[in-house]
């Protein structure tokens, strides 16, 4: 078996293969559903209904998509410059820490000033967290996959230490959780009484801003050049290391906004279960979107929908909601294969 590059994939093919990927995903996961003793059709129906079948379901999906858009953007930006940021999870938690440090009354400011201040600080902190691995990479050739991945565990332990120590809520009945942020530091809900908050709007705006950066600005041009061919970029005079630093600041900052948005918009305080792996899911989201910032919005909603829908489904169909993880993982694999097939022709023999 051998792969031969296709000169130029046609538009029809580039649309057909992702659809084929989704169909393949459904077929593969139906085997597991059958093994769990349920009917695949009804399970998929229930997942779809749970994800988008009612106003409540839809709002829940968008709420769940919000942090995924941020982490997906963070990964998309970094991967575009071939900076392998696997540490969005850590950056998210750092965003959460900064939000509760500044948002629990330390800065007595009105909402209109306090929230932007917190956001800037959050982005700076997340960016600086990724700057370390980026410097280790450019200076000493340390693989950032390892450093960013390990930082996830370090930061989570650090959060645990804070929540048992200085940030522990004295009124928290001993639970490892921080105080709630003050009202001025909270992101308002979009619809009164529902969970969807303005973090979602900030996420959409961020995606558009990132898209503009990548398409229209010098920085985006430099990042793409460095990602495609660092040696060529260096030759034509692009300051490769400086570009990687800027990429790290932007990517880390975006991931940290996920932590800010979850604390400020949804949870109100920092806990050790702030993120059920949004940082890692961000990689899936970015890859499904083929690193396109606007595509990240759609793929984040898709992934969130599967998780939310699977939760709803498992309550009814008695198929474990872990099927959501399998579906997301399978869709990533089939998508990667689909991308491969749009670019290459497979020759047997």
């Amino acid at each position, binding site marked *: 078996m051998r792969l*031969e590059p*296709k*000169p*130029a994939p046609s538009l029809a093919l580039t649309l057909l293969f992702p659809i084929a990927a989704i169909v393949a995903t459904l077929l593969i996961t139906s085997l597991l559903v059958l093994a769990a003793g349920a009917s695949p059709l009804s399970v998929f129906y229930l997942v779809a209904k749970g994800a988008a079948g009612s106003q409540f379901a839809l709002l829940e999906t968008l709420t769940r998509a919000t942090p995924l858009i941020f982490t997906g953007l963070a990964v998309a930006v970094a991967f575009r410059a071939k900076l392998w940021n696997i540490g969005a999870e850590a950056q998210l938690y750092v965003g959460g820490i900064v939000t509760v440090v500044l948002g629990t009354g330390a800065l007595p400011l009105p909402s209109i000033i306090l929230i932007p201040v917190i956001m800037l600080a959050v982005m700076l902190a997340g960016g600086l967290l990724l700057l370390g691995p980026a410097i280790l990479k450019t200076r000493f050739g340390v693989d950032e996959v390892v450093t960013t991945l390990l930082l996830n565990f370090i930061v989570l332990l650090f959060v645990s230490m804070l929540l048992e120590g200085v940030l522990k809520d004295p009124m928290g009945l001993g639970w490892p959780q921080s105080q709630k942020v003050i009202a001025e530091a909270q992101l308002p809900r979009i619809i009164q009484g529902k969970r969807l908050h303005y973090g979602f709007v900030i996420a959409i705006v961020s995606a558009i801003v990132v898209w503009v950066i990548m398409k*229209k*600005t*010098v*920085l985006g*041009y*430099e990042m*793409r*050049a460095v990602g*495609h*061919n660092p*040696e*060529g*970029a*260096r*030759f*034509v*005079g*692009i*300051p490769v290391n400086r570009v990687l630093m800027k990429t790290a600041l932007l990517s880390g900052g975006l991931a940290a906004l996920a932590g800010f948005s979850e604390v400020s918009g949804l949870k109100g305080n920092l806990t050790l279960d702030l993120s059920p792996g949004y940082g890692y899911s961000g990689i899936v989201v970015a890859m499904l979107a083929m690193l396109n910032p606007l595509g990240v919005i759609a793929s984040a909603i898709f992934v969130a929908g599967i998780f939310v829908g699977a939760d709803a489904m498992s309550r009814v169909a008695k198929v474990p909601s872990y099927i959501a993880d399998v579906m997301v993982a399978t869709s990533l694999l089939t998508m990667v294969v689909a991308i491969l097939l749009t670019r290459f022709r497979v*020759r047997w*023999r």
Partner: protein
Amino acid sequence: MSPTASEPVLSLSGITKRFGPLVANDAISFELKRGEVIALLGENGAGKTTLMNILFGHYVADEGTVEAFGKPLPPGDPRAALDAGIGMVHQHFTLADNMTVLENIALGTQSLWRPRLDRAAARNRIGQLSTDFGLAVDPTATVSTLSVGERQRVEILKALYREARILILDEPTAVLTPAETDALFRTLKLLVAKGLSIIFISHKLHEVMAVSDRVLVLRSGRLAGERETKATDRKALAALMVGQEVKPAEVSPVQVGAPLLVLDRVSTARHNGAGLDEVSLTLSAGEITGLAGVSGNGQAALAALIAGTRRPTGGCISIAGQPVGDWSPQAALGHGVARIPEDRHAVGTIGDMSVTENVIAERYGSPRFSRMGFLDWKAARSFAEEIIADYDVKCPSPEARIRLLSGGNMQKLILGRALDPEPAVILASQPTRGLDVGAVAYVHRMLLAARERGAAVLLISEDLEEILALSDRIVVMSKGRLSSPSARGERSIRELGELMAGHGEEGQAA
């Protein structure tokens, strides 16, 4: 050349290979006879490599068949090609550097289940082959210690050791000194005298004339012509290759001006071969300085130094009389140094980005193309269209990925990017490597035009003919050191060859 028996050992009939809309090989048929040397001549992209890859089983032809020694060769099976007695010496050697010559040659010829190599027998056979065919090489030497010429001999021995009856040589002289090339040609003559058949791939006309019995000319995937070598000449072959007459570049006398770039005892670390060892060089306005040498002797280090991608470890660079401060690609560009890099694909372009994005790459930060951190894509695109028109680049659109362009068109874009700002100093590193005759002539004209305008040009090339044709002054690099310069016609090819091999004069070490 040699007595040729008439039975064909290899016959290709109607080979057609398409890559999407591109027809790489179009109904190509030919026969190779016993004891014959066929030269496969053609521009880059003419389909030579595709054809050989089909023959060797790396690709499967869409139509057509290959027969070796009267038996059809199963398509897509390199193993079968090897077993049928076809040996290939690739342009880029496929040797394990950390193993000995003997191990490299015997590698893969014995069953994996045999506990150890029968060294004595292998050594005897290698020794026999070496003496028979003038392929002197020490079987116990580690490959990494060998010169390029010796490595090539190992590759040929490897093929002979596997009892190849048909030998394919892909651009074998690209990395050799003139003396090594002569030795290779003598070996080839001994091989055909023993009844081997040889396919010699090249785009150098004089070599084709020197070594072959018959010449097949490929042009855009078709067999453009087949000539008995005795009955043709270089001009006719060049015309067949490009489809039109090619005029050699005309060199007119130009007044040499002020020194523009001066290297004073500059040393560097190793870089793709030797580093520089206290090299002094002056590039003056209106002068092309040709730098000859066998690859790996420090040309890469010198090119990287002038391009700004490597900093000197000692010595001083001055431009227009002023020592340069911090040295980088940006600084080089800022001082008006244009760079044409050796490797178009890995260094000169960013393959997955568009023609437009590549053309502005050296100047994207200038006010012409960006404002307040935003790129002006309209200005960029019109600049790309300008370069495409001015430098006669054939490409589908400025939005096309540059990877899709042929080598010649890619090089024209790089030329356009480098020469458009009318640079004072031009570094041209192997500017015509792998280009077809037409594109080579174009690059030469551009360099000569720049010289007439008063630019100082450094031409680094492994092609002595090119150096001799264009240079006002020639220096030779060997083991990281430069010879003293010689004016046009002052040193003979033989003398230059000796300098390239590291013999002769004390150089400028004094």
